[in-house]
């Protein structure tokens, strides 16, 4: 196994593109090293992207935020402006692992692992985030929900790396929230995760919404029916009932060591309702 630490994205992409064996990108490493240690993967090349300046920055732009691929969970939590604009995204990223893991883990890594239970991904999907992908020949930008295609598999092509994640600018009276269910209070993988992002008008009517579910299907789901249940309402009980129902209906979960099918379906609705109320409050709704 070789370890490379390029200083530009171009070099990184070139290293990955020309590698004949198995190559992996190292950002936070909190998943990669576990898989390496347990013999789950046997890389020939590891490309550490943390020396690439662009990957380490959170930029506040006219269009919103650009979050570098190697920005850690802890750094996200310390960025007051980001925290204010996208509290749900930040809280989701901050739920990944322990304080120790927060010092290293990244949202981009969370996305590229393509786990359906990744905590930050539903929040990113609900936020309408996009991934900026650098390849050997071109750069492209796609919605984050198009990155994972199956458990452990992404749409990235050989030599491609996610350089950053873009979060859009926030309209007034907007709020987002992420809730997950875990059996303990910390250190678990989500059994169900729900993210809700809403925008309200001056009267408190929901004008825009995105709802996303984690750990209930092979990939993180964007659930337009759930959003529909909220849009045009004041997010009252009936709307929340509709939301919960739509979320439960969208679930295609499995029974596994972390939870049953029935449990996931029921709890997806419960958490959706709770997350929506938090998002609404954050949007200034009364």
């Amino acid at each position, binding site marked *: 196994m070789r370890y490379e630490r390029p200083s530009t994205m171009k070099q990184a992409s070139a290293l990955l593109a020309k590698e004949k064996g198995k190559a992996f990108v190292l950002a936070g490493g909190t998943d990669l090293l576990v898989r390496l240690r347990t013999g789950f993967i046997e890389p020939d090349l590891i490309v550490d992207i943390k020396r690439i300046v662009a990957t380490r920055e959170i930029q506040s732009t006219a269009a919103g935020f650009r979050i570098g691929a190697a920005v850690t969970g802890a750094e996200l939590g310390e960025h007051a402006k980001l925290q204010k604009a996208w509290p749900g995204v930040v809280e989701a990223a901050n739920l990944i692992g322990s304080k120790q893991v927060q010092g290293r883990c990244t949202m981009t890594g969370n996305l590229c692992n393509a786990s359906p239970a990744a905590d930050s991904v539903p929040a990113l999907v609900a936020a309408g985030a996009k991934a900026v992908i650098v390849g050997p020949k071109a750069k492209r930008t796609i919605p984050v929900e198009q990155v994972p295609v199956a458990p452990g598999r992404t749409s990235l092509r050989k030599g491609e790396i996610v350089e950053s994640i873009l979060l859009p600018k926030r309209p007034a009276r907007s709020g987002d929230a992420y809730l997950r269910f875990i*059996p303990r209070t910390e250190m678990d993988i989500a059994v169900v995760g729900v993210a809700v992002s809403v925008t309200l008008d001056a009267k408190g009517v929901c004008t825009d919404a995105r709802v996303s579910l984690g750990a209930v299907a092979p990939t993180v789901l964007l659930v337009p029916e759930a959003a529909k249940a909220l849009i045009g309402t004041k997010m009252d009980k009936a709307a929340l009932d509709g939301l919960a129902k739509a979320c439960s209906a969208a679930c295609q979960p499995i029974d596994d060591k972390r939870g049953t099918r029935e*449990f996931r379906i029921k709890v997806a609705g419960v958490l959706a309702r709770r997350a929506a109320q938090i998002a609404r409050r954050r949007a200034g709704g009364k």
Partner: protein
Amino acid sequence: MPLDSRPDTKRSFAVVGTRPLRPDGIDKVTGRAKFGADAVAPGMLVGRILRSPHAHARIKKIDTSKAEKLAGVKAIVTRADFPDHTDGDAALYDVLYNIMAREKALYEGHAVAAVAAVDARTAREALKLIKVEYEILPHVTDVDEAMKPGAPVLHATVFTDGVEPKPKKPSNIVRRYEFGHGDVEAGFKKADIVVARTFKTEATHQGYIEPHACLANAGPDGQAELWVCTQGHFMVRDTCARLLGMDISKLRVTASEIGGGFGGKTTVFIEPVALALSRKANRPVKVVMTREEVFKASGPTASTSVDVKIGVTKDGRITAADATLRYQGGAFAGSPVEFGAMSAFACYDLENVRAIGYDVVTNRPKQAAYRAPGAPMAAFAVESVVEELAKKLGLAPIDFRIKNAAREGTHASYGPTYGPIGLLPTLEKAKQHPHFKAPLGPNQGRGMACGFWFNFGGQTCVSLNLNNDGTAALSVGTPDIGGSRASMCLMAAEELGIPYDKVRAVVADTSSLGYNDVTDGSRTTFATGMATILAARDAIKKLTARAAQIWGIPAEAVTWEKGHAKPAGANAGNFPPMSLAEIVAQAGATGGPIAGHHEYSADGAGVSFATHICDAEVDPETGFTRIVRYTVLQDAGKAVHPSYVEGQFQGGAVQGIGWALNEEYIYGKDGRLQNAGFLDYRIPVCSDLPMIDTVILEIPNPGHPYGVRGVGETSIVPPLAAIANAVSAASGVRLTSLPMSPPKILAALEAKAG
């Protein structure tokens, strides 16, 4: 025990009962303490073990030829390197079979071969080059399934013992136990209300944070050294020597600092393998388990299936109690079902009681002891039914328990008559405790449960050497797993009459002391402590004799008081008291070094009882359970170092909380463990818990000079039921299967709602 060792309950102690800093403290907080994996040796090799991926398979052939040719590989061992020296000792043969599979691999993770190589990568590569030909056999991991007539049979040699007539066909039921007295059928006839329920508990792991680790160094002359994290280095020495056909005297074992055990380090796993590798390579070999190996191939506890039936009269007296307990203890005989059966009803004063136990084998790792082995699962079942009965009777559960509690003179459910015991005092104290009257919030409920454990003494040998400056060096042979060196120093200082910090205790290696049983059975503070007291008294006898010699008076005319020799009375002579330091300073001239020793089989440990109170909050929409408040009340006999007694209470309670709510061995249909890591084997984390309040009761144990009782194990017995009872009170549903994970609770809530 001689009569003079009976506790003087009015005695006031100088240092026993205080809370000094532990002697190994600085090493532990600075990272210097040397644990199992922290040792190195010149020329050390790395040992790794190849394990069966199958739950049950015949091992047809093991081909190591390719691995042997890999550069850097220095030794490979398989079953062929472990000839049977067990000489008809069935239990030892099971240990031999467990450390290295023979004709069959009996569980996923069963050791099949091992390699010693120059580094970890080479060892890993070598394991991949070993070709094992398996014939996969049908497997069974569930205890009830394993008992069914058509179940795959693990051992063709197992014909259930303890049933008449003895079966002619082999099965997975190793042995049937029965305990009790009276006539339960007649008792049930007298009952106005009878409740019968069936309970299941999943296997849990002790979950010590330090994986098994050892460093073996064996030579062709048969001499060997072993550094190992274990609860009993003498046990490791004797077991390894017998398994490997060595002289016991040629194997010296040193106990490292130990990073938790809870019973899981009371046997051998990697140690004989490391020694065999080292012997073959003629180099030191270090073997350290990975966490995955710890889960798959050390000794978790039994999973169980238990029926309990209890009958009561309308006024709340139990007329009969009956239980059938089925425990699987993995692939070999020896689940702790007899202790489950013996302890199940030990908290109650019963005229008619019966407990039947079945020891069952399955394709799982061979169980090892886990804190009060066998008792928590039985208590979960019994205390759940007791709570349900109290509710049916309209009695407060605590009053129902007080009414039926075992007390001095009660004919215990496992046989003997109790002497002075502390169950009623813990119940009465619980009733007065503020926790019992505290208001509950929404979705919260309160539960309680009682628990019992036997405790024992065991073989013990200590040496107390007095140094020329008046300090003392205490050598004990029981590894210090939770601060016992502090307790030993306290007891030695108490007897000798010198300050605590003038005694230094070490855990001596196997060549320095006689045999010591394992640190288990809550025995160390009791048994090693008593040996320390008696060794100090032995030293005092010598000290007073030396003082007498110096003063020129008869030895009987000298007494020992507060660290000084004194003439026994005016007739003995008029000499100023002579301190320990003054006497030892002249030891060379008066007969040489002064030391005290004691070696014995300690008995009279005294049984122990606890009552726990738990408040739980259950989210009715998700089934998530939070423990809101928890109180442990337990009899310690005499708390030598109260902080570490509290620590035992708290630690046991929290292990019980984990067992009750989230911990479980999850097997797939393929018989493979699905959660062999701390991510999905969910032990409680700091944010899951409230503070754990403790109340130490001191009802002196007549079998110990200070009244000490073992405290380590009882605290894990009540929590499973206390939490189940609290969850039931909070949510309105009673769970009869552990763990009470959110999906189970939610399913029960939904079923109730219809």
